[in-house]
Every structure is written in C-alpha cells, then in structure tokens.
C-alpha cells in the first residue's frame, strides 16, 4: 500500500515538472519586476492574453492526442472573425447571427479537415496545410482585402465586457471552455477513444472503435473552437481582419507541446496544455514589462519550446 502511494507520487511529480517550471518563471518575473508584474490587474491581464490561444490550444490538444495536427486554426480565426464582423454592423442583424455564423464557419472548415483526414486518408499535415491556405484566401475575398469595421457595441462587449466588474469575459470563456473540454477528455468514452486512436490506431479499430468517426469529430471540434476564438478576437479588436490570426496555429501547437502532450499522439494531460498556454502569455507579458524587444521575445519563446520538449524526452527516457 505504501509502495503504491510512493509510485503515484513519483508519477505526479514527473507530470508536474512543467508546473514547477511555470512557478519558477513566475517567481523570477515577480522578483525582477515586483511592482508591475505581480499586480493583480496584471495577473488578470495575463489570463486575458492567454485566453484566445488557450481556447485554440484546447482544440489542438484533442487533435494532437488523436495523432494528428491542425494547421488551419489561424486561418479559421481570420475567416470567422471577418464573417462575425460582417454581420455585426449596427441595425442589421441580432447579435446571435454573427455569433452562430462565426462558429458555424469554423465547424465547417473543421468538418472538411476531418473528412480529408478520416475518409480521404490524407495526412493531417497536408489536409490542414491546404485548408489553411484556402481559408485564408476565402477570408481575404470575403473581406475584400480590408478589415471589416463598424460593429455594434453589443458585439464589442462579447470580449470587452466584464463579470462582477473585474473579471474580463474572455477569462470566463477560457475557464468554462477548458473545464468542459477537460471533463470530456478525461471522463467520457469519446475522450478515452481520442487517446486510444492516438495510441494505437490499428488496435483501436480491432477493438471496435469507429476510428473515422472519432477523427471527424476531433477535427470538427478543433474547427468549432477556432470559430469561437475568431469571434472573440474580432470582438476584442472591434473589427474582422482577414490578416489576423497569422501563426496562431503555431502558438496553439507550442502551448500543447510545452504542456507535455506527445507529438506522436496517445498521451498528454489537459492541465499541461492550460499551463502551456499560460506560460506563453506570462513570458510575453513579463518580457514586455521588462522592456525586452519583441524580436528577442521570439528567440526566447522558441528556446522555451525546445527546452520543454527536451526535458520531456529526458524525463521519459529515465523511466
């Protein structure tokens, strides 16, 4: 019994490696900049900055655990943002219309990705590389190459509003979506199957799992979440910009990987991804406060991704 306990503790310690790294970075930033960084207002601001990437990363996590990748989410953000803004001009449609259309657009692109991967048997990298380019083109055409301005106040409030006057809506969406997705991933049959097909697709099929259906659902879910992210971004920047969301897919992938999800699929924890998304936000926020130029920030971000994976690989090799 006591042996069992030690083993469990050991495992969680390993899993929590990323958590400690996160705490250390927080501590360093708090020491370097106690006044600016550690202010409650700034901490809430970090959560806000992490929210859109966090939502994208949650969808990406499902895709990566299932053994795939989705490069199209950045373009979906742009498309659904443009669509949302286009239907959010004052005096035209009720607020629900832009919301639904934005989410629908994302889901449809996700569904197309899913069909290509599951039924077309095209490698996910190729399918989503294709849709990434196509969807960006569609967004530019739909917006005639220009940002779509002139949206209603209510639309602006979707992301701009606060709950209890202090907590930004964005943070609430991030938390709620994360909790729902965490529950689905860890507690439902669907979640278990996502792990199963990423772990061993052939064994999953032989075990009676409809692999194609699960893949279709996973890509659709990822597109759906990207649609939400696009809507939230458009509301936040008060316009639908067809060139927005560039390289968002890479930030989402980075969050998932920093969080310890294996690129080859089949393993990973939801809270790792949350920490990954927070880590990226903390680092950019902290470096901004420390006046590090955005050019240097890119280098630091890249190094952290490589180090995170290196630590993960070394940790696994020790097992």
């Amino acid at each position, binding site marked *: 019994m006591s042996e069992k306990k030690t083993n*469990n503790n050991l*495992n969680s310690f390993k899993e929590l490696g990323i958590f400690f790294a996160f705490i250390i970075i927080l501590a360093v930033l708090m020491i370097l900049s106690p006044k600016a960084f550690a202010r409650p207002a700034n901490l809430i601001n970090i959560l806000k900055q992490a929210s859109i990437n966090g939502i994208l990363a949650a969808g990406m996590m499902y895709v990566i655990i299932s053994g795939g990748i989705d490069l199209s989410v950045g373009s979906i953000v742009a498309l659904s943002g443009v669509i949302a803004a286009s239907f959010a001009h004052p005096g035209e449609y009720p607020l629900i219309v832009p919301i639904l259309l934005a989410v629908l657009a994302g889901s449809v692109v996700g569904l197309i990705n899913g069909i290509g991967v599951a039924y077309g048997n095209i490698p996910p990298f190729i399918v989503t590389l294709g849709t990434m380019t196509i969807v960006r083109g569609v967004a530019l055409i739909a917006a005639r190459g220009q940002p779509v301005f002139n949206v209603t106040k209510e639309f602006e409030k979707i992301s701009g509003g606060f709950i209890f006057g202090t907590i930004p809506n964005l943070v609430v969406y991030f938390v709620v979506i994360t909790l729902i997705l965490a529950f689905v991933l860890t*507690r439902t049959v669907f979640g*278990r199957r996502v*792990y*199963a097909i990423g772990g061993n697709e052939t*064994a999953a099929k032989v075990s*009676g799992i409809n692999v194609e259906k699960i893949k279709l659902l996973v890509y659709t879910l990822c597109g759906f979440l990207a649609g939400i992210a696009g809507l939230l971004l458009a509301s936040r920047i008060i316009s639908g910009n067809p060139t927005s969301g560039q390289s968002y897919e890479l930030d989402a992938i980075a969050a998932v990987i920093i969080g310890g999800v294996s690129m080859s699929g089949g*393993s990973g924890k939801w809270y790792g991804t949350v920490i990954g998304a927070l880590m990226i936000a903390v680092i950019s926020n902290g470096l901004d406060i420390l006046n590090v130029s955005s050019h240097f920030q890119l280098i630091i971000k890249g190094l952290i991704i490589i180090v995170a994976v290196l630590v993960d690989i070394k940790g696994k090799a020790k097992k």
Partner: protein
Amino acid sequence: MKSDYVLEMKHIDKSFFGVKILDAVDLHVKPGEVHALIGENGAGKSSLMKILMGIYELDAGEIILNGEKVKFHNPKEALDHGVSMIHQELTPVLDMEVSENIFLGREIKHANAGLMSLVDKKEQREQTASLFSKLGIDINPRLLMRDLSVAQIQLVEIVKAISLSAKIVIMDEPTSAITDKEIETLFEQISRLKNEGVAIIYISHKMDEIFRIADRITVLRDGHLICTDDANKLNKDQLIMMMVGREITEFFPKQTVEPDDVVLEVKNFCQKKKFQDINFSLRAGEIVGVAGLVGAGRSELVECIFGITHPTSGEIYLRGKKVNIRHPKDAIQNKIALVTEDRKYTGLNLKATVEHNISLVGINNLASYGVINRKNEAVAAEEQIEKMKIKVFSRKSMITSLSGGNQQKVVLSKWLLTEPDIIILDEPTRGIDVGAKRDIYLFMGELAKAGKAILMISSEIPELLGLSDRILVIAAGRLTGELKRNEFSQENIMRLASKFEAN
C-alpha cells in the same frame, strides 16, 4: 592460459532503480556449441544479452572474450569483436533492397570517401547472391524488404548475422515467426556455423527445439543462475520445473466439456487471393484448433470473420441466424472476440495504462450517457487483474512495464470484459513464458466449461494437440481437413498442412 571457453561472463550484476535483475549470473560458452539460454520472461535472459552486446552497462562482474577481458559500450563494438545478435523484433529497413540490408552500415564502396563514398550496389548484390546460394536460400537480393514475408525477413537477418563473420551469434527466439520448413533451413545453418567453430547462444521457449539443437543449456530464474548442464543430461520436465520453480504435473490441462449447440457457422467463405471456400462450424463449450503453415491464410480468415476485412463471398451464421459483419464493432455486438496475433501492433495501446487497456473494448458498458463511471472501471480492471493473475504493480501502471505474458493476459481481459460467446484466439501464447502459457491454457479450459466457443489458431503443434477438441487444418487458403481427437497426431497435421506444397 588458454581457456576452453570463447565467452565467459562472470558474476554479472545488474540493477535498475534498486531492483536487482541479474544477481551474480555466470554464462560460459564453448566455441562450436549451441548454448540454449532459457527462463521465463523477466528471468534476465535479454538483460544478460544486452549487457554482452553493450546496450546495458554491467554493475559488477566481468566479460572475457577469447581470454581477453572486454567491455563493450555499444553494439558496434560488440560486432567488431565478432559478437552479433539477431533480435526477436526485427528491424529491417523496409524500403531498401535485401542486399542493402545485408550490408547496412558496412557498405561496399567504390572508393572510400567517407560519407560521400559511392556504394557499389552491383558488388553487394553479387556477394549477397553468392552468400544465399552457399546457404541454400532462395531470395532475390534485389527485392525490397517490404515485399518479403516475415519468415524471409528473418532469414535475411540470420544471413546478415552470419555474414558478419561472427564468433558468437545470439539468436533471440529466431523461430517465433517462421514455418517448420524454414526452421529446418535455420537449423541447417546453425549446424554449418557450429562446424565452423561459431558459438550460438539460442534463446527460445520451445522445448522441442531446444532439445533438438542445444549442446548445453543454461537456465535463469528471477535474475539468478539456476543451472548450466549438458542438454543430454536434462529433460523437459526438469527444465520446466527449474524455470518456474515448481513442478507442473500436467502442462496441457484439458477440460472435458460436452459440446453444446452450434453457435457459429461459416459457409463458403472466400476472400480473393487469401482463402477459398471455407466451411466450418463451432459449438458452445468446444475448443477448435486451427493448424496450418504461416501464410496459409489462417489469420486472414479470422480477421475477415471479425469484420476487419471483407469477404468476396460467403456467409456467417450465429445460432442459425445469418449476420452481416462489416466492422469489428458489428462482431463485438454479436458477442465475438478476437485476440489478434500481434499484441503490440493490433492488441494493445502501448501508451496507456493497464486499466485503460482492459476497459478499451467494454468501456460503453462502464459508462452512462457517454460518461465513464470510474469506480466501475476500476472495479472491472481489478477483477480482471485478479482473475487472470496479471502480475502488475497497480492497475495504473503503464502496459509497457509488464512482461509479454502479462501483456497477453491484458489483451484477453479486455475481450473477456465484453462477455463474448465466441472467442477467437490467434497465436495466444506466442513469445510468452511457460507460467503465463499455462495460466492461459487453464483459462481457456474454464471458458469452454462456461459454454464459450473457442477457435484457436496456433503454430505450436503440441499446444493444438493438447487443448483442442477438433483441429481444422488450412493449407494455401483452403480447408484441407478436420481431425477428431482420436486422429490427432503431428504427422496427420503436417500431411494436411502441406497438401498444396508440392504443386
């Protein structure tokens, strides 16, 4: 002083995380002998060989090769000293030619210019061809490895090991995937090597083979050396007792069950190029063996019955009712289970825990509205672990931390959780140790007693003879005969299994 031995491993100790897996183990190998190394999975055979090959570092002890103390840091150093190993799990480069695989890492070059040298493919092919003809092997050196059968790949690996002009060749279960005919070829090569003074360390679970070719035998159990002796001074029962540490009176515990109604009928089953016109039935409480050479179409047949592939024609009846199985999930709904041949590739999710592997198929029964009841899942997993005697630290341990035999028990558990009526087992005991084998045999008997119908494919004839009520023999995709218990004999099986070989 010149020693009698080509290799002496003395007092080898090795621990992982404080667990001693080898404790003062000795291994002495004479030149020109076949030295069988046996023991249950986890006894330390592979670790000992990995230490010899320089894959693991030893904690204490010494290795003396040709009278000289050595310590290898990687397999290449071992190879350079004439020690080569044929691994159980083959790792050929599938998209390269046979000849390129033989010369992988030591290519014949036109002129040596480091990494920029050009490979002399023509010379490599010629040398491979002459090597093959010397050994009596009929494989075209220009074929891609991908296009070879598993058995042929194994032969190529063996030739590769031989061609390294090794002094010691380690063979880790070399016959696990090849047919009897190819086993003969392998044994011929082994005796040829022996005559040239090469020592062979032969790891196997197959007793018959061991007694046929081994000169001396070393038995390991739980990291300890139990015995090293001449093969002709030992017998099978003694070996099994030494391996498992207790006496096994009856190796094939056959339950006598009166067969009940017919539950499964397969009629005129055909799949293009794989099997033709297969007809058979299966009764509740019956264990039916399926014999045949590797490649005869046995696995293809059961995979087709299970809905992994589709038949070109033919019908399946369950309790007299025609069913249409298009996907494994249809088979599962119809209470059929299939324990596939290759547990790593098609049986287990190696990235998951024991618990999650056990619940993989039956998860819907442990969930309501798609939400898993984790308490039920834990109870189900614990029950299976106890019932199947799975040796595991906790249900939350990773599946990869288990030995082959215990992994196989997990695969069985996963299917039993669906409470199937018809259980198809494809090579259920391949590559697992004696103790686990016996557990699985006992369990099959209990399942039959409980009224399950069992169809068992096996390439181990003693297993078929010991457990089956009837044996179906398949050759070249056709059912060539059915043997009743009073007709059971190795000769009868082989005669039917090689029926189309001559044509």
